[in-house]
């Protein structure tokens, strides 16, 4: 990793409904490229992203330090973090099904800034064509484009992207990966992803979680190039990673 990290997570612990989901997680996100959070189901990847964004659920508690640009993020409300430059693409898209595509995008506009519709429509021309269609009637892939398009409407310092290829057809997975690759050229990305082919294509750095702790952190190439590491940490052989 070169340059100061864009995000530093130190000793992050999250407790939800009496369960200690994260137990002292520490890692950094590089100022360029894609840092991927890996690990088996239920190890706390999504919880980590949500804790960074202040979205720990009602009754839950997050402790530790999350710093971006020298400021601690943990006690700040989510909407302020987003306005400070954290873009979030949630797991399962979470587009507003009852609103049109254009309304979903309009909602993401931030006061005092010029929304980058040109950038969004250059990447996703379909969103321009389907502006009046209800988001709930879009396919899974189109909803994912809308979810990514919403955050690209504004300039961000870091994108938090949670399983963007989940449940999508292989062709759409490739399209989403291509878009994220282009996006990562201009803004760093902290990505949660289960599809190791996509990880191989995008990731520059990797953090592997296991049972709420960081089990390994380093260059993505080093992790994915080692059959022993991928087998012990992710439960797959490096051959499967090249799928």
């Amino acid at each position, binding site marked *: 990793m070169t340059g100061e990290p864009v995000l530093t997570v130190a000793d992050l612990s999250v407790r939800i409904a009496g369960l200690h989901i994260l137990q002292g997680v520490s890692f950094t996100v590089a100022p360029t490229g894609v840092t991927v959070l890996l690990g088996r189901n239920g190890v706390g990847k999504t919880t980590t992203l949500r804790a960074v964004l202040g979205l720990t659920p009602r009754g839950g508690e997050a402790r530790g330090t999350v710093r971006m640009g020298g400021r601690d993020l943990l006690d700040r*409300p*989510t*909407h302020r973090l*987003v306005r400070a430059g954290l873009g979030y693409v949630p797991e399962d898209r*979470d587009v507003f099904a*009852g609103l049109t595509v254009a309304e979903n995008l*309009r909602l993401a506009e931030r006061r005092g800034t010029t929304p980058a519709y040109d950038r969004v429509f250059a990447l996703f021309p379909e969103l321009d064509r389907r502006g009046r269609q209800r988001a709930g009637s879009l396919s899974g892939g189109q909803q994912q484009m809308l979810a990514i398009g*919403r955050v690209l409407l504004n300039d961000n310092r870091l994108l938090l992207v949670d399983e963007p290829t989940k449940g999508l057809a292989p062709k759409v997975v490739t399209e989403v990966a291509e878009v994220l690759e282009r996006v990562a050229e201009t803004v760093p990305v902290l990505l949660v992803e289960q599809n190791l082919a996509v990880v191989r294509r995008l990731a520059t750095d990797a953090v592997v979680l296991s049972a709420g702790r960081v089990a390994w952190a380093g260059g993505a190439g080093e992790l994915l190039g080692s059959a022993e590491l991928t087998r012990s940490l992710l439960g797959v052989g490096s051959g499967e990673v090249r799928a």
Partner: protein
Amino acid sequence: MNTIVLLTLTGLGLAALYFLVASGLSLVFGLADVLNFAHGLFLGVGAYGTWWAAGNLPGAGGEGLGFVLAVAFGVAAGTVVAVLVELVLIRPLYSRTIEQVLVTVGLSLAGVALLQATWGADARPFPRPAWTRQVTGILGAQVPNGGLLLIVAAAVVLGALLAFLRWTRYGLIIRAGVENREMVTALGIDVRKAFTLVFAIGGAAAALAGALGGVYFGTVSPGQGGSLLIFAFIVVVIGGMGSVVGSAYAAVAVGLLQQFVNYYGASGVGDLCVVALLAVVLLLRPQGIAGKVAHA
């Protein structure tokens, strides 16, 4: 035929009253997840505010523009109280559902007690324009003008609410927030401002219901808000939490059902039928007519 027209229009008048109370209640619950048992208080403040203004506010009175000014004062008072309740009592309790219920129930009881202590427990005659005490002949039926006034007012409020939800930035935020509040926040929007706004809208509509309900019933009493609130809750559940259009449909269904069954059956049976309708909707379509979507 005359009877059916009369029952239909008086039923719609009742529906209009329910809608004015339920629309705000529905938006508040749909967006903020607050079950506001103090909503009847806003109605009481609107009614008593109008009643007080008609007798004491310079320029206000029981006729013409004076009555409009009195109603405007009542609506403003209801709105201010609703905003204060949200800012002072509800906001610190947004993640604590049980405490919210306790506070709003307590507030509704305290509100009624305060009105009783100030102006007495007995119903008082409501100042209203002479024409609202008269009737209009429609298809052979003599329909009370007070009921027609309620229908027109509810239609105007429905149109204004839909236009607000459809065409304004805050309307968009409210519609989105009813679907997924957390995601609205994750787009950089301070959704708490929208909470205050829906309380203000709900308070204004309920206060208007209080003022026009006074015209309709001819009296104002401290417990009026509470009794109407029960049917408003039924309307909200049948219509679907967060749906203004659903509330309108449900209010019409409840108002007409009550009126027709009370007339052709026996007095009070209409209320039982409304509860039965609620049970049927909950069994067959638990999300209500329109589900949890704020329709524009």
